């Protein structure tokens, strides 16, 4: 379960940030099978899935943590706008311990539309 992600300049490499407490199993799996699928869902039910190959991982640094902070705030705002009650949205988005974290980088090969409804599962690129 990641908190925040960043797309690199080449628009192909993506780094997701996973709390260290959760990362060990994930890293073990990635070491044995380099394929990764990342589901991205917005509060509005808009959703995408990225599939690709694992590249590398390292602990998150200060810049990345600052990036995560900014993403959390906008996630809270979008959850409230989508209709989540404050009592749920706030603990849900702000309550996840995101540091210490692991930055997991992968090369995206396919992007799928996952928003529920017509077109779900379509390969976008």
């Amino acid at each position: 379960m990641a908190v925040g992600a960043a797309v690199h300049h080449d628009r192909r490499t993506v780094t997701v940030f996973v709390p260290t407490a959760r990362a060990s199993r994930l890293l073990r799996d990635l070491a044995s099978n380099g394929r990764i699928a990342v589901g991205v869902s917005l509060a509005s039910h808009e959703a995408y899935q990225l599939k690709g190959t694992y590249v590398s991982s390292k602990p998150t640094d200060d810049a990345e943590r600052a990036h995560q902070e900014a993403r959390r705030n906008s996630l809270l705002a979008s959850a409230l706008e989508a209709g989540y009650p404050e009592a749920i949205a706030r603990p849900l988005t702000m309550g996840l311990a995101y540091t210490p974290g692991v930055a997991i980088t992968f090369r995206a090969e396919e992007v799928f539309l996952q928003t529920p409804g017509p077109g779900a599962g379509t390969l976008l690129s």
Partner: protein
Amino acid sequence: MGILPDEIKPAMQGVIPSHVVTCSRDGTPNASAISQVYYVDADHVALSHQFFNKTKRNIEENPRAAVWVISPETFEAWDLELEFVGSETSGPVFEVMEMQIEAIASIVGMKGIFKLRAADIFRVTAATKAVGERIPLTEIRAPR
């Protein structure tokens, strides 16, 4: 056997969306968000899949799935490891799920359009509460 404790039940009310991950036989993973994981009994859960064909195809090749639910009371996350048992199109579990979908569909003008196709029943092989993940609620109170 009773793998699912009572405290996980609030996480299975659909208040916070969940996620399910499956994997094809050749090892390609697939992740999707789902609106609700339904509690069947202490050893089983049910999923209602309306749009996610890739998940269904994976399950046919490899019956293992991982599901992740969050409790709307404690906001703790639970990782569940599942094994597909079968799909039901009738029976008490199907009916409970079908009635809920029917009730909401009728309100949003989808009566007869959005219907439960099947209830996918899974046996829970492991249930782990994620630890060390929460920032205490007192530290994230809204600024007054």
